[in-house]
């Protein structure tokens, strides 16, 4: 009898491995999301009764420019972070890969900011960016660049960049570490062959290492994209979405509607919109990056 069961289960047994994880994810993500979908058609305030109001929440999202603006801010912020974090991380990893003597030390140093929480980093950088008493402006005037000093977070033309820089500062160590794992996974005889063929350091990087790093790119880009899209902590602490919504990301808009205004129903609608965006971006990236991996 058990043997017969075994035979029946044989082809699907491997998939049972996913069951514990699926149960946990189902209870913590799928069920609450379904509940959110439900709430997004109501005027729920977080307490009391939720009244069904049809598509009104979604209509408001489309009819008021501020919400579409916050989608724009989110995309711009994510783009900035992902591009710079990936590039800077790649440069560090490529350099450190060639410098075994300092590799561990530098990797540890780069990783340090990621050890700190968003709250702490946000507050510390807020002090650094401060217009009158801030560390950055003091530093700029010390090296004779006083004309560049400004209220970094108060100026809409720099605020988003300033927060993106803080975000990159925090997580570039992650990216570097993941790329270094990728570098370490490159078979040493391939590199050796390249060296014997007289390829320069740059050529080895460009034609041997870069293509082989494709899986690391996939991990890095997907992790940082999704992580950045949904982050709200830094703008929440450093600017509260200001000045005049220049850093008002969609996730911050959700938090404000949820906890500032108690518009749970509307916030749920925004969350669903956000989820759709994040999932769409992740799927497109995944397909594209996986295809790129396979082609190499």
């Amino acid at each position: 009898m058990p043997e017969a069961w075994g035979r029946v289960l044989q082809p699907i047994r491997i998939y049972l491995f996913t069951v514990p994880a699926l149960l946990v994810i189902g209870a913590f993500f799928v069920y609450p999301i379904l509940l959110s979908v439900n709430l997004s058609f109501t005027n729920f305030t977080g307490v009391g009764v939720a009244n069904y109001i049809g598509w009104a929440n979604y209509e408001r999202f489309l009819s008021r420019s501020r919400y579409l603006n916050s989608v724009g801010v989110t995309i711009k912020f994510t783009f900035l972070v992902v591009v710079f974090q990936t590039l800077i991380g790649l440069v560090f990893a490529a350099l450190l890969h060639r410098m075994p003597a300092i590799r561990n030390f530098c990797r540890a140093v780069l990783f340090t900011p990621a050890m700190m929480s968003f709250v702490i980093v946000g507050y510390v950088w807020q002090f650094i960016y401060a217009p009158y008493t801030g560390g950055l402006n003091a530093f700029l005037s010390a090296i004779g660049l006083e004309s560049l000093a400004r209220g970094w977070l108060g100026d809409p033309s720099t605020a988003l960049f300033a927060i993106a820089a803080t975000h990159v500062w925090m997580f570039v160590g992650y990216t570097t570490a993941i790329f270094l794992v990728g570098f370490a996974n490159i078979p040493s005889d391939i590199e050796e062959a390249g060296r014997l063929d007289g390829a320069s350091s740059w050529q080895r990087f460009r034609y041997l290492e870069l293509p082989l790093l494709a899986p690391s790119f996939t991990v890095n880009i997907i992790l940082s994209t999704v992580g950045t899209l949904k982050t709200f902590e830094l703008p929440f602490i450093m600017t509260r979405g200001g000045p005049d919504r220049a850093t008002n990301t969609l996730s911050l808009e959700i938090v404000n509607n949820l906890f500032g205004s108690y518009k749970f129903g509307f916030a749920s609608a925004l969350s669903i919109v956000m989820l759709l965006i994040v999932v769409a971006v992740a799927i497109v990236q995944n397909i594209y990056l996986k295809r790129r991996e396979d082609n190499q």
Partner: protein
Amino acid sequence: MRPMIRRVVSIFGQASVVVVTLAMLAPVFYMIMMSFRTSAEIAEEPLAMPQALYLGNYANALENMNYWQGVLNSLGITLTVTVLVALLGSMAAYPLARRTNRFTRGVILIVALGLATPPFVTITPIYVIFRNLGLLDSYPGIVIAFTALNLPLAVFFYTSFISAIPKELEEAARLDNCGDWQVYWYIVRPLLGPATATLSLFVTLMVWNDFTYPLLLLSSPEKFTVMISVYRFVGNLNIQPDMLFPAAVLGSAPLLVLFMIFQRRIVSGVTAGAVK
């Protein structure tokens, strides 16, 4: 002559990389310096070095933060969650990395949904679930919550990692009549060391630094994680530098120590992989 020049260039290059890297630490240095200054000093001259190693801020923070209890709580929760996430995550990842069909694509989609969900979206329903299960204000509750929060990331991470492991070993084991579980447990799992080391960093960071969930799910101060202790101590309006900076240093310090330990483990894991 040429090798000499090359060596000089190389030393110069390494020195510049070290300098640039260290410059990244300036904000951390700033935070530590500020933590030793009195609020009067800071008000007077916001950027100067501390005039003396003033420890009053720390004495005040330690006295009012319930600090050591918080450290123990964070540590215990982190270790438990890391083990759970590594186990559940790598198990789920194994079939996802080795099979591609409608089922695995569906699972990946669900996992991606979990990864994409901003944590505050699910707060209210999760609170209700926890209440019904009697998990509020308990260690098992917060452990389960963090395990769930980390799991999607873990599944993705292991899937990507296992995909990069050659299949030959597993196929050989299968010829020896090993079942899926044995293949996973004896062949795949032991190879995941480097991935688990890196993943444990992700987990540690999330558990240590996230404050939304412990803030919501824990109500008795003796169960608070460090970050909640810091957060409760500092507040979020009218931030006082003489309270913020020592609390920030205290909140970050244990993790840095923990990080050193994990850092070595990663290094050895990576080198072991490279040698093979």
